[in-house]
């Protein structure tokens, strides 16, 4: 794994914008003056690590449900039964993304699992593939995201439904006044159209609920059979309107059981079930008894996103802190601090995508800070 400096494409902006990536220049988000080069062996390790972690999370989810640990994961009591039922019913998932620390040596280490609302999707699936075709046409890229997403919509629609009664329309919800989310959701709509389905966008604020039918409805009172929502489950559960998740016939994607895996609390659960595992970093609940000498760690709120409210502690002293966004009321976990290797002064984090129950590709974001945020740069990758 190495960072390679390259020339930008002369038509970079046109190429990106013509495929919908309108926000590529915000804070120099899309960066192609460099790329990360991997070996096939390294890519294979990232792929197999993703598949193995999916299996481990399946065991962890079963452990959480069987031992009634949903409260410890920060899930409100009113939703425990619904989350458990969603898990038992094996409601289908669309996607997720592992964030790995990896420097090319040994195995990737799991930093966290974005199980519910990972973004950076269009740039991962399409923009960096276009870049490969333009810049490194003879190289390869770990990227089957697009094809897998198209295929997974068919699974989501057909699973547990009789063949003659399949919904033809999928609704996609994102919050208003957020272009990045709007683009991400419209890319997913594109993949659903390619899977043969009708699609409709709705803002999360415009959703309604029909008490007679038990379905969510769009702004035109149209029935929502399947709802993809780019909005965190843990927020939905805490809002007044979230009560309708408890008795709806609408199929929600991501399903409710993903709330068990999208919290950082799953990290100490995994460590408890798989102590010393090569893909994991030691992790504990903050108020657990800690091992002697455990004084270098990342302190992470259960529901933090984009690096917010994360603090890095080294030898008992704080060395970095993410933006304050009021996360942390539900508690914290402590994850052993790993020193990322700097490449030209940048710290890369591997985003390893999964679609359904299989590894699907990767993306890389780099930052001069040791905490990856939404201001970090997206950098393409390739392998020979």
């Amino acid at each position, binding site marked *: 794994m190495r960072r390679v400096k390259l020339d930008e494409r002369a038509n970079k902006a046109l190429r990106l*914008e*013509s*495929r*919908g990536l309108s926000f590529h220049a915000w804070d120099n988000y899309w960066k192609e003056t460099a790329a990360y080069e991997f070996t096939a062996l390294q890519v294979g390790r990232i792929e197999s690590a993703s598949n193995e972690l999916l299996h481990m999370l399946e065991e962890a989810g079963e452990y959480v449900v069987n031992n009634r640990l949903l409260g410890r994961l920060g899930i409100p009591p009113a939703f425990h039964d619904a989350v458990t039922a969603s898990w038992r019913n094996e409601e289908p998932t669309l996607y997720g993304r592992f964030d790995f620390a990896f420097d090319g040596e040994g195995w990737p280490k799991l930093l966290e699992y974005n199980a*519910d*609302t*990972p*973004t*950076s999707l*269009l740039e991962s699936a*399409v923009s960096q*593939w*276009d870049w490969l*075709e333009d810049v490194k046409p003879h190289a*390869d*890229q*770990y*990227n*089957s995201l*697009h*094809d897998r997403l198209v295929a997974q919509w068919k699974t989501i629609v057909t699973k547990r439904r009789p063949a003659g009664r399949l919904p033809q329309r999928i609704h996609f919800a994102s*919050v208003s006044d957020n272009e*990045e989310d*709007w683009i*991400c959701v*419209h890319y997913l709509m*594109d993949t659903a159209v*390619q899977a043969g389905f009708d699609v409709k966008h*709705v*803002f*999360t*604020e*415009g*959703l*309604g*609920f*029909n*008490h*007679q*039918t038990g379905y969510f409805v769009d*702004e*035109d*009172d149209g029935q929502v059979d399947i709802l993809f*929502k*780019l*909005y965190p489950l843990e*927020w*939905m559960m805490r*809002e*007044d*309107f*979230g*009560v*309708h998740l*408890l*008795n709806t016939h609408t199929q929600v994607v991501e399903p409710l059981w993903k709330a068990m895996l999208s919290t950082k609390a799953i990290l100490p659960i995994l460590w408890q079930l798989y102590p010393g595992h090569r893909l994991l970093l030691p992790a504990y609940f903050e108020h657990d008894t800690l091992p002697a000498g455990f004084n270098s760690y990342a302190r992470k709120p259960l529901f933090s*996103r*984009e690096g917010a409210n994360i603090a890095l502690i080294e030898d008992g002293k704080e060395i970095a802190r993410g933006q304050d*966004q009021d996360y942390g009321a539900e508690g914290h976990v402590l994850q052993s601090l790993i020193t990322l290797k700097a490449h030209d002064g940048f710290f890369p984090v591997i985003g390893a995508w999964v679609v359904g129950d299989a590894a699907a590709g990767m993306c890389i974001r780099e930052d001069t800070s040791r905490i990856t945020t*939404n201001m970090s740069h997206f950098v393409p990758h390739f392998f020979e």
Partner: protein
Amino acid sequence: MKKSKTVPLLLLGSTALLASCTPDQPPIQEMRQDAYASIEACDRDWVDDVCERSGSGHYLGPRYFYSHDNHTPYVIDRQGRTRPMPSHYGAYNGYGAGTANAPAVSPARTTMVTGNASAHGSSAISRGGFGSGRGSFSFGG
């Protein structure tokens, strides 16, 4: 690992699609909820619906709205079920005459507008959606 040559896109990149994403809004009605200083006052108004303590220390009755279609006030219980509001409920007084006026507000309670609702024929549709927990921060990962 390489699955296709060029990733096809059917929707994105279309300027027609990107130009507009604000749908026409259907007629909406206000969803209301009453806050009380004491649990006794709340229980008195809502009789067999459970009052709950809010984060701000007040006690909240269930949410309710007035259906213009049916000329009937509806109450939504904690499980999200909707039913016509019984006439002996405190909030019924302002609605009982079949008007869409706001209910009479007693000194013991404060009425809040918590969202929007509409009624379709005999079915009631609550409006409000998701987004209040968002604050000003993004949440992608």
